[in-house]
């Protein structure tokens, strides 16, 4: 069985991580000046750009009196996978992903603050190596923060899977995704311990769900602290450039 080998006897995964370790996450806010907010995020070899426009006035027929419209567009660069992709967006997979992202982000945005408005979120996967959805959510969160949009809290996403039939793995890479069993993707609001979105790649026995879910949520928690640190550093940097420190005095 393929996933017998995902975790060695010494407790190391194929790439040298232990079961409960995230891949390295690097991120940067405000990478573009044109959009209202933007962010770049690397989760291992999965690299994602996110840009946010808005809130701006929603087109007449679509507008909603009480809440903001969150409009997402998810696309994958043609060079993002091993083999060149033919269509960067619009295929079923991307459409599905777009809807999932929309749902997830709506759960975090204080939608009631922006009636008759629309927020556009563009997400481009530059390199795909597993956990595309999660990296997209994490990048989008940063971009939304960069755009100054009011969020209830950070929304973070992480995957988890099972190795050797019973050991949960956190943040699976592409290799582990294809050679392993089912992968669980979870987006959560870690501070309030709420789940915004959850998806499973295949059927999976109920017995395993609690421990795998627990691992995914722990991953979300860890990602939140990494994102939070990045946001604070970014603000400190932006702040020092605009001399906020002195204004405060």
């Amino acid at each position: 069985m393929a996933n017998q080998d995902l975790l060695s006897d010494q407790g190391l995964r194929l790439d040298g991580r232990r079961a409960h370790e995230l891949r390295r996450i690097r991120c940067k806010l405000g990478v573009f000046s044109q959009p209202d907010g933007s962010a770049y995020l690397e989760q291992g070899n999965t690299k994602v750009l996110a840009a946010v426009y808005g809130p701006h006035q929603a087109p007449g027929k679509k507008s909603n009196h009480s809440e903001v419209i969150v409009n997402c567009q998810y696309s994958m660069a043609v060079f993002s996978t091993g083999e060149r992709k033919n269509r960067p967006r619009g295929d079923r997979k991307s459409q599905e992903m777009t809807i999932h992202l929309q749902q997830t982000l709506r759960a975090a945005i204080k939608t009631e603050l922006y009636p008759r408005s629309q927020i556009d979120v563009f997400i481009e996967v530059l390199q795909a190596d597993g956990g595309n959805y999660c990296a997209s959510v994490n990048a989008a969160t940063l971009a939304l923060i960069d755009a100054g949009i009011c969020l209830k809290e950070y929304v973070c996403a992480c995957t988890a899977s099972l190795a050797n039939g019973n050991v949960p793995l956190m943040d699976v890479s592409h290799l582990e995704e294809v050679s392993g069993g089912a992968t669980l993707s979870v987006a959560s609001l870690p501070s309030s311990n709420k789940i915004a979105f959850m998806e499973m790649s295949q059927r999976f026995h109920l017995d395993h769900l609690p421990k795998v879910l627990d691992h995914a949520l722990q991953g979300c928690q860890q990602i939140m602290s990494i994102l939070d640190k990045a946001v604070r550093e970014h603000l400190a940097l932006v702040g020092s450039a605009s001399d906020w420190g002195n204004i405060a005095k």
Partner: protein
Amino acid sequence: MLTERVFMRKTKRGNILKIVREHYLRDDIICGSAICKHCPVSMQNDDDIVLVANPSAESSLFKFPIYLVPDTNVILDQIDIFEEDAICNMIILSTVQEEVKHRSSAVYKKFRDIVGRSPRHCYVFVNEHHKDTYVERKPGETANDRNDRAIRTATKWYDEHLQQSQLNIPKAKRIRVVLLTNDAKNREIAQNEGILAISVDEYVKSLTEHPLLQDKLKHKTYEVESSKNALFPPHLSPAEIHEGIKSGALLQGSFMASRENYLEGSVNVEGIEKFVLIQGRESLNRAVDGDVVAIRLLPEDQWSAPSEIILQDEENDPGDVLEEETEILAVKAEVEKTPTGVIVGIIRRKWRQYCGILQINQVSGSTRHIFVPAERKIPKVRIETRQAEHLKMQRIVVAIDNWPRHSRYPNGHFVRALGPLGDKDTENEVLLLEHDVPHSKWSEEVLSCLPKLPWIITNEDYERRKDLRDIFICSVDPPGCTDIDDALHCRELPNGRLEVGVHIADVSHFIRPGTALDKEASLRATTVYLVDKRIDMVPELLSSNLCSLLGGVERFAFSCVWEMDHNANILETRYHKSVIKSKSAMTYEQAQLIIDDPTQNHEIAKSLRHLNRLAKILKKKRIENGALILASPEIRFQVDSETHDPIEVEAKKMRETNSMVEEFMLLANVSVAEHIEREFPECAMLRRHPNPPQTNFEPLIKAGENQGFEIKTDCGKNLALSLDAAIKEDNPYFNTMLRILATRCMMQAVYFISGTVQNEEYFHYGLAAPIYTHFTSPIRRYADIIVHRLLAASIGADSTYAELLDKHRNSELCNNLNYRNRMAQYAGRASVALNTHLFFRGKTQEEEGYVLFVRKNALQILVPKFGLEGTIYLNIPKDNSRHKPGAPVFVFNKDEHTQQCGNIIFHSFDPVVVRLSLDSTNVQREKLVFELVKPYIEGFSVEPMELSVDDNDDQKASDKVSESTPKRPIGNADENKPKKKKNKKTKK
């Protein structure tokens, strides 16, 4: 959390794809040595410290204690050395481990097992993910060179790392790390880098306290093979083979040596329906049974047919010369030819360890001897040993090392001795090893899973189960059966219907998924029945006590209860877990007596009569559907209860009651199969018996034709009908022999998972059932346990668990079950053969037999009484090896498959009388000799024996019986557990 992660990239180039993978390097991997003071303490776990602080310094080459670091080739080549406890305190690098795994999964499995044994002190060091020992491949460097460098780097790091912790110890007493490699160049580089390096040979020879270890060294010749004196053509290189297969010039397949002719074999190539024939030593080109080989197909005009000759390599070592082999190569133009090829290269060797005996070199003092494997398909092996005198009367295990071009036989080395020749236990051990039957003692872990005695049924149990204790349930089994897994009942209901229940031991109640007991049982897969021994699948406490549905005691059962009308039509089916109390555990004979005795009218008798009547209807229906009745000669031995020597042989009797039990088991299996397939369409464990390809039937059709019968094989039903019609008045055994032949045309029935096969392929050919499974023998078959769990889950009696519903995992389980079943069957047959030999020791008997096949130089004879098959070699003109001048000459007729001598003609199926005796002139290799008695041929047949000889034998046998203490039936009960299920028949 980890403290530091350095990010590296490892690229692998496939065809066009560039695969980029992350490779994390860590600083929390410890060295695993008890003396270390520098590894991060927080990461240390006492279990991880496996290398001892004071490794013994047994090697005469080193004056200080050492840890060993073996490289990949050392492990691959010398795995038998590592089996020894003398080799310990090793550091296994992950680089090495990965390479071993990649190159040979068999060695890897063994090695992992060795590493896991605690007294060996082997530590696996993940050097590939350690920040100080990871090396990146340099431009232009081969993968092998990189790995060698990685191994050296890690060895050096270890040595230096340990020095730091030993600063207070005098230099000469410090532990050093030694690289174990047979690559001279690598050793030189290592030594230049300041690393201690040594070859395995040197190291093993320096272990003066273990001199016999040397025998186990594998001899690896590094000399270039010259074509001078070469007996065999060279093998193509892997690259050439790869090219050839890609271009279609070569074919790939697995090689099967012929059991009957050591100069012949066949290759099963995917895409070619027939086996590709390989004939002659040069064409076989050093392939050993099981190897994956590359072959070149010969042009059609050079094709040949399997020779009709039976040829065994019986000479003592004649040196490296080849004898005449024109006989088998002589082309027979008239016979239908099959694709023929030559082996040009070996893709993968499938060598394993072989059991056999030592044939001592006549030259005294020589250490080179010949090893004769027990399996006839395997060639003899040359080995070197210093303990020949000690080993010559023992069964030993040997591994093949290599087969150079100039050598008639492969070279190998001694692995271990099993015990004295002819000893029953040794012979059984050989049998079990050769058939890969797991038979070690139950581990503590497994035994700890057993319920504690006294085992009591609680009120809770009664509440959760249906109480059937008042119903008149009984079991019918062969005499002495202790693992009773089925019981039956039948009663009339007030509504006029009949209620029939099949109650199966509830083994899955005791064997919980995922426990050590469960794992061991799934590995063993089946109970193996030898003539005088039973190798249980589950410990005896379960198999013969708590699970066994003994008479008069309360037991848990899984019941399948039908409501039927009086014509055996099922009106309703129910399944439930129950508590039963069998009223009586009977033998087939006892049950038959009760049925036949009209004066008995108690509940059990009524129940049995109903069952018997229904079974007859069921059987009739089944046969009308096209179910086959096949035959295989089955015999049972009367075994002496003390010496376990066979005393008497008899063919198994079939009574109505055998058939009665069988019918209800079949019915239960079919009902359960339908039920679990409906509930779990993707992951039900079922059993199918594929339609045999028409080519399989050719020998059967031919044999029928020769006797003037047309055997139709287009479908099971027609086959059954034509077999029924093929009856010869003058030869009552003819029909049975045809059925024996038909059995050999069949495919093997296999377990499979419903989701992995198309619905149409669920079919069970032999039973003519659209769907089938095994439910009724959970004590002795693991498949039944899985089926019980599925059934229990579907009726809410038990919970599911992830693995139960995992299609892929269960498919792999099926592979193991199928393999073990096949092996268990072979082992059982081998055991019968072994006991037949024992039976004939010092005995000569004349028996009736029949000609099964007529060969070019031999007659193959079947003796129904013993289920024995043997060969009578005939005198053929020009056959140099067996021709006796002056003896009568036989003439072979190819068209009619007959042998003629004077005016006597031998056809297939002709009755003969043969004399059976055991040739014990070679103590190491006894064989059963068949000699012709009737028809009498002057100068060839032997004179009929005088009766007095027979009397003596009988006398001896009865003496033996009277000597023995009151006989418990256990001894002979084990082997004759009825082959209840039709699908046990096999293709030979």
